[in-house]
């Protein structure tokens, strides 16, 4: 019968019209911004730099300015300048730090390759998406201070991933301490024929435990 298909179609639209009042599967829109979207844990937007603490973000950045992310970034939106001096990292080991670390979020395409290639778990993906700005440079070219966010924030947005990273970093730290301890023990047990300076060597990594030997983490040279 001609028109049967049309009537069938009208029945479908009627079902959807009624369904949109009571069936969540048929009424899926949200009243943004009154209702904020519930983002999945994996959601990624732009990168941020992980710092160990919130009090001293510049002093506890995990980034050691190795520039791998800068090289691998497909659209080349990362700009890093290495520091001239060294600062102790979370483990107390002296490391180079980024004197300049800028990400041009107008160029960034949120591909996450910087996160994948970072060997230090220092750069992670943020979930902040409402970042409209009135000026292309003031608002969208993010510098080191704007990029740094504490590890606690990372735990807040990606809890599973952050716990894995923390566990891995802790295991690496333990392994390194164990290795240093074994090396020290081996050297101590070595025959006295070894030069006396070698015996003193094990003390060097341990020296990081004494805070007095660390230069105070003053303001980075380029932040003025």
């Amino acid at each position: 019968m001609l028109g049967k298909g049309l009537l069938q179609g009208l029945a479908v639209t009627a079902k959807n019209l009624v369904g949109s009042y009571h069936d969540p599967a048929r009424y899926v829109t949200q009243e943004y911004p009154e209702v904020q979207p519930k983002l999945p844990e994996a959601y990624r937007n732009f990168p941020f730099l992980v710092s160990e603490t919130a009090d001293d973000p510049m002093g506890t950045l995990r980034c050691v300015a190795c520039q791998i992310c800068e090289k691998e970034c497909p659209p080349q939106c990362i700009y890093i300048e290495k520091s001239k001096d060294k600062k102790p990292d979370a483990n107390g080991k002296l490391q180079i730090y980024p004197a300049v670390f800028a990400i041009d979020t107008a160029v960034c395409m949120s591909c996450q390759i910087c996160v994948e290639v970072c060997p230090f778990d220092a750069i992670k993906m943020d979930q902040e998406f409402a970042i409209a700005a009135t000026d292309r440079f003031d608002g969208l070219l993010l510098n080191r201070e704007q990029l740094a966010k504490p590890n606690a924030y990372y735990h807040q947005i990606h809890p599973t991933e952050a716990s894995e990273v923390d566990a891995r970093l802790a295991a690496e730290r333990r392994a390194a301490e164990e290795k240093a301890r074994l090396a020290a023990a081996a050297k101590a047990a070595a025959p006295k024929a070894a030069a006396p300076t070698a015996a003193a060597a094990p003390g060097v990594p341990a020296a990081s435990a004494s805070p007095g030997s660390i230069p105070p983490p003053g303001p980075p040279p380029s932040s003025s």
Partner: protein
Amino acid sequence: MESPEALRDRLLARFPGASLELVANGSPSGQVSFRIDPAFLREVARFLRDDPELALDQCSNVTGLDSPDREVVETVKESQPGAPGGPPVVTERKQTRIAPGHLEVIYHLYSVARRHGPVILRARTGNRTDAVSLPSLTPVWRSCEFQEREVFDLYGVVFEGHPDLRRILMWDAFTGHPMRKDYVEPDDYEWEPTPHGDVLAKARRHYPSAAAPGAAQPSP
């Protein structure tokens, strides 16, 4: 499908006088290809399409390739007669020569009817400047029509016998062929300084007054 060597022999028997070379492929993919004399390209293509055993009825992909002129350093051995009765004196000398560049077009052929492939054809132009024409395969496979226009647009290969050879991705007034290796991009497009030296330097060159030093420096 027959082996590439058998196919080469069959083609050589069918087209005496055609220069046909089997190009090896160093990658694990093992996709070997046939480099064909442009003069015979269309005849060979038509044969491959119509041969009942091959029935390569689909030209899936047309690729342009640019090989610029490059310097080749060669070691030349020269032997001069030495002292009477003694061995000849051999001197080695390094010389550089310019290996002329060329443009190349690669066709990936498959058979929909017999479900095999790819058979890969390649043909080279004489050089990159004035002898850049190759016969078009659009009369054999319609699928080449837009793809050859693209190769013409981006590489500058002129396809003889193409029904409608115009630029396709770039606009008609555009000059140059952007996919060539030696293409220099213009510095007067709409620029936006980024944290990167290259773009910034280019912007300063083109707009010395606009891009004042420090305007786009990242301000940490």
